[in-house]
């Protein structure tokens, strides 16, 4: 009734657990819903980890961009420009090619005839994660940088008046305000990042043992059933649900960031003005 049989067979297929062979004939709606859902595990994996790690690098990049020293500012500027200025599709492709070449070119000789084992970087779970991590860091870094420049002068003066300096001043005054200002745009970035995870198996990174993301299985079904009108809308529905979850989690966090403000000043909903939507 609830696709129980398919759930057992294919529920974790994207991780390599369950039936080894994908369904090939008499494909039911249950097969498609379960297997595509199983692929969503990877979309969530990529999205959550890249976002979590990217949050810290983004903060560093924002500070780097705001630094007075050109030695810090320039690299941060270039990093952000490189990843924001080019399509993710091409980043994936080039990264995969680069990772494939890595072990040959530096590993051999240095680490013996076998070379250093950097082979895992060519696997999507690691290599694509690195690309997504850099990518989202660059976008979020730009958002944080914009917010950093908008931190009200009064807040900083108040911090000075209280004698806060250095890291304490940053952690207690600048950083929370920056996050508060950046939050709506950062929410959008998170949504986009989850969407971007569908590109992983589409450009560059190959699927191993038919373990892929939601889009990978959808295109498998589109090929097997010769009907694109069922699997792709299933992916779309899954992503609408995922987006709603992301939005609710982020707005909960946003409320926490704004909890000290009087209720009339709290933004009721993310404002679209001037916000970076990638």
């Amino acid at each position, binding site marked *: 009734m609830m696709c129980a049989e398919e759930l057992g067979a294919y529920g974790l297929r994207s991780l390599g657990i369950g039936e080894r062979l994908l369904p090939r004939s008499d494909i039911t709606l249950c097969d498609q819903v379960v297997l595509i859902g199983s692929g969503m595990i990877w979309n969530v994996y990529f999205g959550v980890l890249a976002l979590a790690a990217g949050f810290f690098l983004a903060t560093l990049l924002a500070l780097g961009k705001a630094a007075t020293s050109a030695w810090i500012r320039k690299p941060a500027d270039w990093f952000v420009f*490189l990843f924001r200025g080019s399509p993710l599709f091409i980043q994936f492709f080039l990264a995969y090619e680069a990772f494939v070449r890595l072990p040959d070119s530096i590993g051999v000789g240095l680490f013996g005839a076998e070379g250093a084992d950097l082979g895992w970087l060519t696997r999507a779970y690691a290599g694509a994660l690195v690309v997504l991590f850099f990518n989202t860091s660059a976008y979020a870094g730009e958002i944080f940088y914009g917010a950093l420049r908008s931190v009200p002068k009064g807040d900083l003066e108040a911090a000075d008046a209280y004698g806060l300096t250095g890291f304490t001043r940053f952690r207690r005054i600048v950083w929370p305000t920056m996050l508060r200002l950046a939050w709506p745009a950062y929410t959008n970035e998170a949504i986009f990042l989850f969407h971007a995870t569908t590109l992983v198996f589409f450009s560059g990174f190959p699927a191993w043992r038919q373990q892929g993301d939601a*889009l990978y299985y*959808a295109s498998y079904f589109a090929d097997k059933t010769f009907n694109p009108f069922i699997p792709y809308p299933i992916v*779309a529905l899954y992503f609408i649900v995922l987006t709603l979850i992301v939005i609710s989690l982020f707005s909960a966090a946003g409320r926490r960031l704004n909890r000290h403000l009087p209720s009339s000043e709290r933004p009721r909903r993310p404002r679209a003005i001037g916000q970076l939507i*990638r």
Partner: protein
Amino acid sequence: MFEYCSDPSALDGARWLSCYLTNGVHLRFYSSFGTVLLLLAITAPLALAFGFLGAAASRSSVAPLRWAGKTYTAMVRGVPDIVFFLFFVIALDQAFEWMRHQALCPGWDAPIRQGAEFNVCPEAKLPRSSAPQAWHEAYNFSLAIVTFAIVFGAFAANVLYGAMRAVPRAQMETAAAYGMTERQAFRRILVPQMWVYALPGLSNLWMILIKATPLLFLLGVEDIVYWAREIGGSKTSAFSYPHPDWRIWYFSGLLVFYLIFTKISEIVLAQLTARLSAGQATAEGERLRRAAPAGPAA
């Protein structure tokens, strides 16, 4: 291209390269850059139009219209663009042909859907199967444009909706006080003023649009990624210019192209923002007003 190119196998070094880089496929590769730019030039205003309609619908007082507008923006925003691209073109194509079929072939009694097949009468085919190849390509291209415009129109709607809300209420109230109808106020006060609020969002959208163009090949357009993949792949001696896998060079070239393109866009958009901000009741407009030397407003 050059005279000495008639026998590529006899060439080497720079001459070989000069012939290789000017052969038929490369010329098509270079012209595909034009295709991408053309697509961007047509898609941007079209997406803006879709966005405007979506935003206007979202703030409509007619409930079904409002729901339609909100559903449009929310749905497209919730779904990765690539998923749309993968089935939307065929869906759109079939939708157009189905409508033409209803209009042109009322007497047709065979079913349109037979299993996986979609059969409309020959008159309803878009373009007619006897049409020259150029029409087929133009049609495919316009389907790609419409698909892009629908997807990015939803984002534009989101931005414009926010911009319309950002126009100070006092402006609209003043308009009402002057006796303007809601429609007049919308056209004369709201629309002219919303652009400055919308520009940052729209600039961003333009950047997103640029960076979505590598997915054009999914829509059946032979774009720069299609040709880079096609030409860059290793070629055996069945080809006049055999070479190993050079895709990494071609893709690096594309990377540089995109970086330059986004940089130029950034500069132009920054100038546009400065110009639009002049004379506006915003912080930036205020800054410009103070910075400007005294004298007649330019």
